[in-house]
């Protein structure tokens, strides 16, 4: 009887390992779908940030046109390289819900 129990256990483990391998394969397939779509998503995201930066620049030119000694679109850093803009910077002139949605709309983690 003990042998039967142990046999059942081992059989259960073997089934578990096989199913886990199958789940790993399925997960890899879904990750590959994401890998294949990344360039499209990255290009769209880049265009979107650049478009928002452009609109912000034009708004800034309109808003600060009477302030003396203000260079429109001046960089706040000393370097010349591309610095990814912050969400607050991008969504500055838009309603607050949009910024909150971008920041907290999609979360990778689940704890609060």
């Amino acid at each position, binding site marked *: 009887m003990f042998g039967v129990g142990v046999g059942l256990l081992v059989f259960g483990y073997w089934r578990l390992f096989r199913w886990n391998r199958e789940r790993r*394969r*399925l997960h*890899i*397939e*879904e*990750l*590959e*779908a*994401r*890998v*294949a*779509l*990344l*360039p*499209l998503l*990255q*290009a*769209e995201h*880049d*265009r979107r*940030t*650049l*478009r928002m*930066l*452009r609109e912000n*620049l034009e708004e800034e030119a309109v808003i600060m046109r009477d302030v003396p000694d203000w*260079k*429109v*679109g*001046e*960089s*706040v*850093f*000393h*370097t*010349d*390289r*591309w610095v990814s803009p912050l969400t607050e910077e991008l969504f500055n002139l838009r309603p607050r819900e949009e910024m909150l949605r971008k920041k907290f709309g999609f979360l990778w983690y689940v704890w609060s």
Partner: protein
Amino acid sequence: MPDVVEVPTLQELTVEEVNVSSAVLKAAAHHYGSQCDKANKEFMLCRWEEKDPRKCLKEGRKVNECALNFFRQIKGNCAESFTEYWTCLDYSNLAELRHCRKQQKAFDNCVLEKLSWERPELGDLSKVTKVATSRPLPENPYLSRQRPEPNPPIEAELQPSKHGSRMFFWNW
């Protein structure tokens, strides 16, 4: 002194967008990965080497064109089976591919007959590839300062250390 950050104009940024929802993209993802491979890899290479999205707008445009061509080809040839496949994916929770195997097989067969596209095997899309571009490698993309000079090479005769290695007890 900080300069003006150059942002491309709206006219340079307008590109014909792929107006398609997420389930459609996921359904066609594997075939898209094998068909539009060249444009995608060039764009990613450009993005990762230059580290600047403003310099990769041209490649991004090509990515969009390739994607639009791809979807036009599917719509022209295999529209019904593709629609069934992506509606099935849309219906399932989390758009899991394993719930829609039947429709996937039908779509794959249709595409194989009419366009002779093969679905890539598991692991093919994650393989590391070499990309050939005409764009030169950018030197110093981070615009860093000049690095200090490397140490001069040691000129004397090197002997093994006396009494054995000093790191005898710390060799992990």
